[in-house]
Every structure is written in C-alpha cells, then in structure tokens.
C-alpha cells in the first residue's frame, strides 16, 4: 500500500484539526451566547432588586442573589480557615510520610465525589439528624465540606511551590517558624491559595444538586441562618424546567454566567501573576 506523502498527510491533518478546534470553540461560545443574548435584555435594576411573584413568573430575583451570596460566604467561612490551616500544617509542620500521602489521596478522592453525594450526606446529617432543616446553615456547611478538599489541595500545592530557599533564608535570619510562615511563605503562596478559594467560589455559585436538598427552594428573602433560601442556579433550574417563565429563566442564567465568568477571569489574572512571579 502506498503511504501518503508526509507533507500531504500533514496538510490534511492540519485542516481536520483546525476544523475540529473551530467546532469545539464554536459550540462552547454558542452556549454562552445563547444564554447571554436571551438573558441580558431581561436584566434591569428591578430584576436584580425585586422579590419574585407568582412562583417566579414575574418580579425579580433578589432573594436568590442574597441566598447565593449567603451560602457561598458560609461555605468559605468554614472551609478556608480549616483548609488553609490544614495545608499549612501538612507542608510546614510535618514531614512527608504515609499519613500525609493518605490525607492527600483522601482529599483528591473527595474532590472528585459527585456533588449529589454531598447533597445526600448534608440532607441526612444537617437537615434531618441535626435538625437544622432546610436552611442556609445546612446548605453552607454542605458546600463547605464540598470545597474543603479542593482548598486543601490547591493551598498545599501553592505552599509547596514556594522555593525552599525562601524558608531557609528566613530561618537563617532568626525568625521563628510561625513568623516564617506568616511573613514569608503565606504571602508568596497567597495568589495560589486565593486562586483555589476563588475556584471554589465559582463551584459553589453554580452548584445545584447539593444545594437544592439542603438549603431548600423557598423564594422568600432569607432572614437568618436557619432560613431556607433558593440560590440562583436552583431558581434557574426550577424556572426553566417547569416553564414558569422563560425570560426570567434566561435572565437568571445570564446573571449566573456573568458572575462565574467574572470569578474565573479574576482567577486567571491572579494565576498569571503567581506564575510570572515564580517562573
């Protein structure tokens, strides 16, 4: 069989790859544009600040924005100190041994567990067994547990990538361990840590499965930690599936997409600064 001339083969392959790349980028952009084109016209100040009426058929989405912010804040409040503290302990205060490897593997596994399982766990433990009911507390704690493994892993990687020389110089100048950590290591690793935190924020905002079973789907403005609250993604899910109001669904989705894109852009900028600092 005659083999294809390598240059001809390359030209064909190049065209094929180009076409496939074009298709991929097109599809991904189509999805974003689909939402934004239909959703942006719906956005207005009143949409963002009014309460919903009639199951969301009219009115705005203000309670869902509050709910989303509350849940995310609660998740971060719990997961960031625990996660960063754990990462600091693992990298600075212990040596690499079997235990740290097990912890890392465990964190990796849990980072990959489907969110519905966290939802099941959170529903049984927080909503039922501990009696918190459908609430921001239940939802926030569940989300915290969900992002904790990611924060531990990204913080650990950020801390590990701080050159050892930084630490050596610091201690050779007479600093204590804690001074070295807070004044030298943490500031250097901060962009990487913050990247992990912000990625978790993005994940929390878009999370639906774990939230709908723990924070519930009440449309009322939440008044306390024990209030049930609907997040934007849950609201979008319900509006869109039940056909309650397509325009409002698109509007909610547009807000969601814009928020997540903004969060991701910030992450990207930070990561860039981090990489530039150390490469």
């Amino acid at each position, binding site marked *: 069989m005659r083999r294809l001339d390598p240059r001809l083969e390359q030209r064909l392959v190049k065209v094929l790859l180009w076409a496939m790349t074009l298709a991929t980028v097109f599809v991904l952009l189509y999805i974003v544009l689909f939402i934004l084109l239909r959703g942006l016209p719906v956005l207005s100040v009143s949409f963002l600040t009014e309460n919903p009426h009639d199951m969301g058929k009219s009115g705005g989405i203000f309670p869902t924005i509050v709910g989303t912010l509350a849940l995310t804040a609660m998740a971060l409040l719990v997961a960031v100190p625990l996660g960063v503290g754990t990462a600091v*302990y693992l990298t600075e205060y212990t040596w690499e041994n079997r235990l740290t490897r097990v912890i890392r593997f465990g964190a990796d596994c849990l980072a990959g567990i489907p969110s519905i399982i966290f939802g099941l766990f959170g529903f049984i433990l927080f909503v039922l067994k501990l009696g918190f009911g459908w609430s921001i507390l239940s939802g926030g704690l569940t989300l915290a547990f969900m992002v904790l493994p990611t924060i531990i892993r990204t913080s650990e990687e950020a801390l590990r990538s701080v050159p050892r020389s930084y630490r050596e110089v610091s201690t050779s100048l007479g600093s204590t361990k804690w001074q070295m950590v807070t004044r030298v290591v943490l500031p250097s690793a901060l962009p990487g840590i913050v990247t992990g935190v912000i990625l978790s924020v993005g994940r929390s905002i878009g999370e639906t499965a774990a939230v709908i079973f723990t924070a519930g789907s009440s449309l009322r403005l939440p008044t306390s930690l024990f209030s049930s609250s609907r997040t934007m993604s849950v609201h979008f899910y319900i509006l869109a599936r039940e056909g309650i109001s397509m325009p409002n669904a698109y509007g909610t989705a547009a807000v969601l997409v814009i928020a997540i894109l903004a969060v991701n852009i910030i992450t990207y900028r930070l990561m860039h600064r981090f990489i530039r600092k150390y490469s």
Partner: protein
Amino acid sequence: MTSLDRRESLVRAVLLLAAFSAVSVLAVITVFIFVEGTPIMFRRGVGQFLFGQDWFPGEGRFGLLPMIIGSVQVTLGALLIGVPFALACAVFLTEFSSPRLRRILKPVIELLAGIPSVVYGFIGVIVLVPFIRDNLGGPGFSVLTASIVLGIMILPTVISISIDALQALPPSYREGALAMGATRWQTVRMVLLPSARSGIVASIILGMGRAVGETMAVIMIAGNAASIPRSPLEPVRTLTSNIALEMSYASGEHREALFATGVILFIIIMVLNTVANLSSSRRGRERKG
C-alpha cells in the same frame, strides 16, 4: 520555656486542630456513606444489588443494574464524543497554531469550564432534545443526548490539561524530531503524543470523573427511565440521577439503597483517582530517567 516557644507551641497546636478537624470532616463523610450504605448490600447480597434489573423501591426491589449500565453508557459516550475533539483542540493549539491564538483561546476555554451544569442541561433540553427527536427518532431524551451534552461539558477540562501536558514537554523533543526531517504531524504522532501520554490520560480520567458525577444536567436530558436502554436513542437513568430523584422521600431500606449507590460511586472515583495517580507518578519516574 520562653514566651516565644509557648506561642510557637500554641500556634502549632491550633494548626494541628485545624488539620485534625478538616481530616475528621473528610473521614466523617466517607465513613457515614459507607456505614449507611454497606449493610444493605450484604443483607440483600451484593450480586442481587449490582446485577438485579428491577428497581421498584415501593416493592422492596433494589436492582441497580440499569443505572450502572446507564452511567457506564453515558460516560463512555461522553468520552467517545468529547475526547477526540478535546485532543484535536489541544494538539492544534499547541503545535499548529500561532502562540497568540493559543494565548487567547486557552483562557477562553478554561473560563467555560465554570459554566453551571444546569445551563448545559437546559440548552440540551431546548436545542438537542427536539433535534434528536425530530431527526433521529425516539423521545429525544436518550443516551445519545446525555453523551453529547456530557461530552461538551468535559471538553474544557480535557483540553486545558492536555495542553499543559503537551506544553510541558521539553522543546528538544520537537527540535530533535524536526532535525531528523519529520513533519510537524509526524512529530506529534510519533514523539509528542506518546511522551505526553500520562498527562493526557490523567486529563481524560478527570473528565471521566466529571461525567460520572454529573447529576442535574443528566436528569434534565436523559429521560430517567429505570430500564436498560437497547439503543442510544432510548431513555436512561444514571446512578447519580437515581439518588437525586428519590432522595427526598426515601426512608428505611430505600434510603439505605441510595447510600449504597453512593458507595458504588465512591469506589468508582477512588479507582479512577488511583489510576490517575499511578499514571502521573509514572510520568514523574520517566522524566527522571
């Protein structure tokens, strides 16, 4: 002991507490799921559970086979559809395009990784389901629909990690091959792809994990029929959808069965993670050699 030492000890103790709490949390979740989920598997027989075809919780029948097959089909479908495009994209962007194009497109693609899954699911319902129903047959809610949407969802993950893997290869690989007269494509095919294999495999496994774990989008588009699909155009239910659909009202044995489903998913993820770890450690070892 000076006050300095005491402060250091205190700090260390607090950090240890934080680490301990975090690890406890991780352990609690794992233990909880296993404790709630394994008794029923042994009581009913693991075989019955994994290979039973009838899921009728109202009658006490908990056969997970349709859902296991559902998850497998949908995940494999997603990989079949997503991976070729993802790899084509990665190869194109690293080897055949200008660096400027890559610098623009890679972040754009990574941005899209954050789009919530309910948005993908919704567009699947609005656009894909009617299309498949009108042009290919069936109700539109099917294995094929789920595979396509999940395939699209894993694209950003696989693309960006594969690009990283390819970019991490030393330039000498490319230069050496080109110096010997190979074309760009021959270089890619015979030198670069094999060398980057472990990173690419890791990216595929990560994508697989995401596809297996997806719930909301799948509920919206796959039809959720608890039967084994005989063609890609028939509706299907995955393990994750099963949990989500029945979780709020399941009690007693039914609830235990859902936790058991969680156990199975947990084990699948553990296996995938172990394989990914092995693959990347092999890469580390090869690099040293």
